[in-house]
C-alpha cells in the first residue's frame, strides 16, 4: 500500500487508486471517504461482494488484499492503491466453478448464500497457506466469519472437500477420503 498518512488530501476529494483486481490492472479516482466495498460494487460492478454489519465483524464482505482476508466494508478504497485485490468474481475458472466454489456447491456449504462469497474467499486464503488443514484449523479460520444459517458443519465439510480437490489437482499422493481429517496432524 503506497498511501502515506502524511499526505494532505481534503475530505471527499478524489485520489487515484491503481490495483490488480482479480488479475487485471484497474484504475479509479475515488473520494477519500469511499470504502473498498463501495468501490468494488459501485465502480467495478463486483456485486458478489456485499455488505452486512459494515463494522468489520461479520465477514460477509471479505476480499483478499495481497492474499490476506480483509473486510472490504471497513477499509478505505485509497488504502488498496498498489495492492492486489481478489473477490468472489475472481474465483471462477472461465465458465466453470473454481474448486472451492465447486466444493461449497456440492457439500451444501451454504443456505441463504449471503455469507457464502466471504466464506469461499476465506477458504481460498486458508488453503493457500495450509493445503491440508485439520478440523481445528478450519474451525478457527472459519470462526472469523458469521453464518447464521448452516450451523457451520457443512461449511467445514466444504472446506475439507476443497482441500481434497486441490490436493488431487496438484498431483499430491492420493488420500483415502474416508480417513481424511484424522490422520497424524497434531
Amino acid at each position, binding site marked *: 500500500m503506497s498511501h502515506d498518512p502524511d499526505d494532505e488530501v481534503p475530505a471527499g476529494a478524489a485520489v487515484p487508486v491503481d490495483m490488480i483486481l482479480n488479475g487485471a490492472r484497474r484504475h479509479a479516482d475515488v473520494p477519500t471517504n469511499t470504502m473498498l466495498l463501495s468501490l468494488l460494487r459501485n465502480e467495478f460492478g463486483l456485486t458478489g461482494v*456485499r455488505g*452486512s454489519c459494515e463494522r468489520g465483524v461479520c465477514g460477509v464482505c471479505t476480499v483478499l488484499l495481497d492474499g490476506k482476508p480483509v473486510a472490504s466494508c471497513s477499509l478505505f478504497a485509497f488504502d488498496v492503491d498498489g495492492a492486489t485485490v481478489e473477490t468472489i468474481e475472481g474465483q471462477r475458472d472461465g465458465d466453470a466453478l473454481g474448486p472451492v466454489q465447486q466444493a461449497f456447491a456440492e457439500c451444501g456449504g451454504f443456505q441463504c*448464500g*449471503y*455469507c457464502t462469497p466471504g466464506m469461499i474467499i476465506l477458504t481460498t486464503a486458508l488453503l493457500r497457506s495450509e493445503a491440508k488443514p485439520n478440523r481445528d484449523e478450519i474451525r478457527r479460520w472459519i470462526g472469523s466469519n458469521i453464518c447464521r444459517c448452516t*450451523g457451520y458443519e457443512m461449511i467445514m465439510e466444504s472446506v475439507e472437500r476443497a482441500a481434497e480437490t486441490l490436493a488431487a489437482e496438484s498431483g499430491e499422493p492420493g488420500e483415502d477420503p474416508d480417513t481424511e481429517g484424522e490422520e497424524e496432524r497434531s
Partner: protein
Amino acid sequence: MTEVVGHNAPRRDARAKVTGSARYGYDVALPGMLHAKVLRSPHAHARVVSIDTSAADALDGVAAVLTRDRLGAMMTTFGSLIKDQPVVAVDTVRYVGDVVAAVAAVDERTALAALDLIDVTYELLPTVADIAEALAENAPELFPEEPPGFTPHYGPGAHATLRPARNVSFEYGHTTGSPDAWDDCDHIFTDTFHFPRMHHMHLEPYVSVSTAAADRLEVWTSNQMPFQLRQELARLFSVAESVVRVHGEYIGGGFGGKSNCRTEHIGLRLSQLAGGRPVRFCMTLEEAFLTISQHKATLTLKTGIKADGTFVARQSTVLLDAGAYSEYSPFVAEKAGYRMPGAYRWQHIDTTCWTVHTNTVPAGAFRGFGGTQATWANERQLDLIAQRLGIDPFDLRCRNMLDLGEQTVPGERPIDSDLKLGLDLVADAIRYHARPHVPGRGIGIAMACKDGGGMNKLAQARVKIDVNGNVYLAAGLTEMGQGGHSALSQIAADVLGTEPARVRFTDVDTDYSPFDSGTNSSSGIVVTGRAVAEAAERARRQVLEFAAESLDLPVEQLDLRDWQVIADGVGHPLPPMIQQVYGGTGFEFSAEGQYKAAFSSETPFETQAAFWEIGWAAAEVKVDVETGKVDVLQLVISGDAGKVINHLGARGQDEGAAVMGLGQALFEELRYEGTDLLNGEALNYRVPMADDLPASFVSITQEQGHGSGPFGSKGLGEGGMLPVPPAIAAAIADAVGVQLTELPMTPERVLDAIDRRHVTI
C-alpha cells in the same frame, strides 16, 4: 416414484450463490434511484411536540422528507391483528429507535445529512422497561387510546381478548378438559421460567426498492411474505391489491424477521413524495436491531401429577414482552399458548398468554414462534419434577409422551412421529443410559413438539411444460436459504419423471405467482409442496391424456419419463406428437394445484396442523465449578423429515436451527438496561461462530414416513432449535446438580446457581 426425491441433488441455487451472482433485495438497483434513511427516536417514551424539516427540505440532493404531516392519504399505522405501529411517529414515540421521519436523497450520505437537520422537540413521558414494570399498578400506559384491532374466531376451548389489562394488547386463552382433574393430582408444582430475546441477525439487512405511480405501487424486496405484504401495503395506501406488485428476490436470511412491512411502506411513500422516483431503503444492521426481535417471556407453569409421575393437569401463564408495538405478537401469543402442553398427554389444560407492551424494540415472528419459549418452560419443569420425584427424566418423558397417532386435542391432526423412537435415538447416540457419573460432567435430553405448517395456511402452485419438456414451476414460496425452491423443484420433477435441472422455479411476483400465505412455520414442504405435487400430477395427467389420444391407447397404460410417453416399454417422444397437433411453435401444458389445511370445527384454530414438527436433542457438558463456564462436549440433534426430499437441505435446516438454539442456550441475548439497548450491533451482539460448536455435533435426520406432505414428508427448520436449550440445561443439572430456569446459561448464572446450591446444602 421417488426417482428424484430423496436423492442427494445439489441445490438449484448453488451456482448463483457460490459465484456471488444471486440477486438479493440488497442488489436491486433502478435508474435514477434515490436512497432513504430514517430518523429514529433517541427517547424510549415521549410526546412529539414539533418537527421542523425546513432545513432538511432545503438541502441539496434531498428529494423527499416524510413526517406525520406528509402521510397524505396513507393510513398512519400498520400491524397484524392490531394496527398500532405508526409508519412515522404521530403523537408519541414508544421506544429508542422508533421511526420519526424519513428522507429520500441522491445518496445515503445526503439522506443522513438531511436527518441531522430535522429538528424534533420531545416531551418525555415515563417509561416501562420490562413486563413487571408494565403490569405494575399505576404503570404509565403506552396506548391510552385503544388502537384498531380485532380478535379472530376460534373453535371450542379457545378465546382471545383485546386489552385484558393495562399495557396488555392481547390475551389468548385455551382450555381443554375439566378443572376437576386437579382433584386427581397427588402433587402440584408451580415454577416460573425466564426466556430472553434474541435478534434474528440475518446477514442481509432489511432492504427494498420501491416505485410509486398513480396506478402501480411496486416493490422489490427481501420479504418472506410477498402476498401478506401486498395486502398490508394495499390497506396502508387505500388501493386495490392489484395496484401493488411485490417482487420476491433471494432473501439473505430471514428467520421470521422479514415478515410484514419493514422498509417497503416508507420507501413507497417517499417515492410518491419524490414524484415516483425509485427509492432504495437499506437499513444498517444496527437499525435491524431496532426494528424487530424475538419475544422475551416469563412463563409460570402449575402442573398436577399423580404419584407415579402421570401428568394430569397443567395451568400455564405466559407473559410475552411484545415491545412497543403489537406486530405479530397476537399470533405468537396464540402459538406460545397452544404449544404449552408440549409433547405430552393431559386431562386438563388451561393456558393464558398475554402480550405485554414495554418501551423496547417490538417483538415479532422468530424461528420457533412461541414454541421456543414454551419448550424451554415445559421441558425444564419436567426435569424439575423428575428430580423432585426421583424419577429419571427419560422415564418421565416416556410415561407421558403422546403416542404416534394420538391427538393432542379432539379434532387435531394425530401425532405423526413416534416420539419414543426419536428420544431413544438421541439418548442412545450420546449413551444417556450408560453415562458415567463424573463430577462436573453431565448428559441431558429434551424434546419439542410444535404444530407445523402455520395456521389455516393456503398455497397454490402452477406447473407449465413446454413443447420440449422444460418445466416452469410457479409458487409463492420465497427462497430465504431453506432450500424450498430446490425441494419443490425436486417434487415436481419426481412426479413428472424428469430431471430437477429441467425444472425452472419462476421468480416470485405477486402479479404472476400463485398465491401463498407466506414463507413461515416450516410450511414449504407440506403446504406449498402439496400444492406443487397436485399441480404436477394434474399436468402429468394432461400430458398422458393428450398422448393417449395421439397414440390411441388407454391412458392407464401410459407412463411419463424423460419427456417420452412410455407404452408397453416403448418410448414415444412427445415433441413431434405435440407439433403434429399444435404446429411448430408448440403448446404448453398447464395445471394448477392447491393445498389448504383441513377445516376442523373442534380445534382451537378451526384448522388442523399441517403436520407436527418434532425435535429431539441430547447434550453432554462439562461445567467448570470455579468459573461457571459450560462447555458443550457433544450435541446430538434429530428431526423427523417424514421422507427426505433433499438431504443437504434437510440436514442443513436441522443443524442451523440447532446452532441457533446453542446460542440461545449459552450466550445470545439482546441486553437492555432499562429501556436502553446495550448490545445492538454486530461487535457486541454475540451469535454462534464456528469456534462455538461442540467438539462433537451430530444431526440425525429421521424418515419415519408418517408425514402429510408429498411422499410422506414433513417440514423442518424450527424443530432442531427448540430442544437444545433444555437439553443443555438438563446436562448442567446432571453435571453439577443445579437446575437453571433462565436463559442464557452464562457463566455468571451457572456460578450463581452453584453458589446458591452450596448455601442451601
